[in-house]
């Protein structure tokens, strides 16, 4: 057995190595990926979005690799929901590019697509779950109808196929099939989120965008939804971008995290590193503010 010690041998200042600058924390910049040979599924660069005089998003870069969960965390007004809306092609940015490495779309700036191509991408390649189920669902129609609509938009015309697809999607979201024809307005919040999830998954998209999917739900229901998301991500190898202000949700699901404040990304890193060794002053405040 060999032994080493890190007792500094001949430095004048006890405990502080001479070779280091006086004020350091972690390495500020990291190497580019070498082991990960595939390029990211999602790359968004230079995102800028202004509403009048308010700059909601400024110079934001997002990348997400296939099969990972990327968390975007920040407080209200940080711009994280705006970023999600841009990634969902719901709004056009004032600047920036956005590519998805999917068949037929590689190299295409999605912000430059015409309205037909954009709708096509939104329908087939991206699934979205909103915080407010009223935004994502048609409350007057049945839950199965909400899911079936996605297939109807892409031209499915067989009633039997629609029923089967709705069943499959709702079951994958752990929604009780005996209630599949209940309208969402009769369901609890957690159930409504499951219908949204089923609707988002109906066409088996490669990218799933979640905007505070469990905010406002009971804690026990939150746990169930998080578990469903994790299982789905593993089974379907989906790429998920998860926006949340809840660090518990981020810790449970995200692999990597972007921390946003006032429209900018102030820090990015692995989830446990962000939560346990936050580098940026704001991130430190955010993490330490947890009750």
């Amino acid at each position, binding site marked *: 057995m060999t032994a080493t010690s890190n007792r500094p041998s001949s430095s004048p200042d006890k405990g502080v190595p001479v070779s280091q600058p*006086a004020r350091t924390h*972690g390495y500020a910049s990291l190497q580019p990926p070498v082991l990960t040979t595939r390029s990211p599924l999602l790359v968004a660069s230079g995102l800028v979005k202004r509403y009048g005089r308010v700059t909601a998003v400024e110079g934001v870069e997002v990348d997400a690799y296939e099969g990972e969960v990327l968390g975007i965390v920040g407080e209200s007004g940080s711009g994280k929901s705006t970023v999600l809306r841009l990634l969902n092609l719901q709004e056009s940015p004032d600047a920036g590019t956005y590519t998805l490495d999917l068949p037929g779309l590689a190299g295409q700036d999605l912000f430059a697509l015409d309205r037909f191509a954009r709708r096509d991408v939104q329908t087939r390649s991206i699934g979205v779950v909103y915080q407010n189920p009223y935004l994502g669902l048609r409350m007057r129609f049945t839950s199965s109808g909400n899911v079936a609509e996605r297939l109807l938009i892409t031209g499915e015309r067989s009633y039997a196929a629609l029923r089967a697809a709705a069943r499959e999607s709702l079951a994958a979201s752990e929604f009780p099939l005996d209630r599949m024809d209940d309208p969402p307005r009769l369901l609890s919040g957690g159930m409504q989120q499951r219908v949204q999830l089923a609707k988002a998954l109906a066409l088996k998209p490669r990218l799933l965008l979640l905007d505070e999917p469990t905010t406002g739900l009971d804690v026990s229901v939150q746990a169930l939804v998080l578990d469903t998301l994790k299982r789905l991500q593993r089974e379907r190898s989906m790429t998920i971008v998860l926006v949340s202000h809840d660090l518990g949700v981020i810790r449970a699901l995200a692999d990597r995290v972007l921390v946003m404040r006032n429209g900018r990304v102030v820090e990015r890193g692995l989830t446990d590193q962000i939560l346990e060794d936050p580098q940026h002053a704001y991130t430190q405040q955010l993490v330490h503010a947890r009750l």
Partner: protein
Amino acid sequence: MLHVERLTKTFHVDHLGRDIPAFAPIDFQLAPGQFALISGANGAGKSSLLRCLYRTYKPSGGSAHYAAHAGTIDLATAADVDIALLRREELSFVTQFLRSRPRVSALEWVAEPLLNAGHAWDAAVESAGTMLDALGLKRALWSAYPSTFSGGEQQKVNLARALVYPRRLLLLDEPTASLDAAARASLAERLAAIKDAGVAMIGVFHYPQEVMHLVDHEVRLEGMTNDVAA
């Protein structure tokens, strides 16, 4: 397999305006199948060193070159996605703290690394069961939620999850803290077995004497006596 050179970590706590060094520059090397014990007084930075290698903490300086399957990489400055890949495939970190998701059973929690790697449900769950058995977790608890377990039981679940999927480098942070003597002995046996299989390990142990027979290399951390104002 692992070549650590002048690795250091200093925390900068913004609201205090201070820099707090975790440990002074450390050097050591580890080959496959070797076991390094990290020793030192409380607060000397033993956990911090492990976390720096796993990248839960971002090192401030130095390097930790690791010979991964696909090539050598410096853990200190590697891209986040590369670290995520290594954590899935080759690196494992065991603490005494359990952080499972709320509604996941102990068995599923242990099986998850296998499921994430694409193994079939039945095979993964069977391996998980075997591991829990070997570590001595009562079968009745396998379908229960680990957050309700005692410290020792949570520890066993933690260990099982880390050991169920073969890794190349295992980082162990006080893995036996809440275990009774029998369970500690059982763990020492498991570690000996995987050491023979070529897994490299770096560990902080509350009762180092129980694993001394496995140790190839001891890394002693001296305490940081000053912290420096920024």
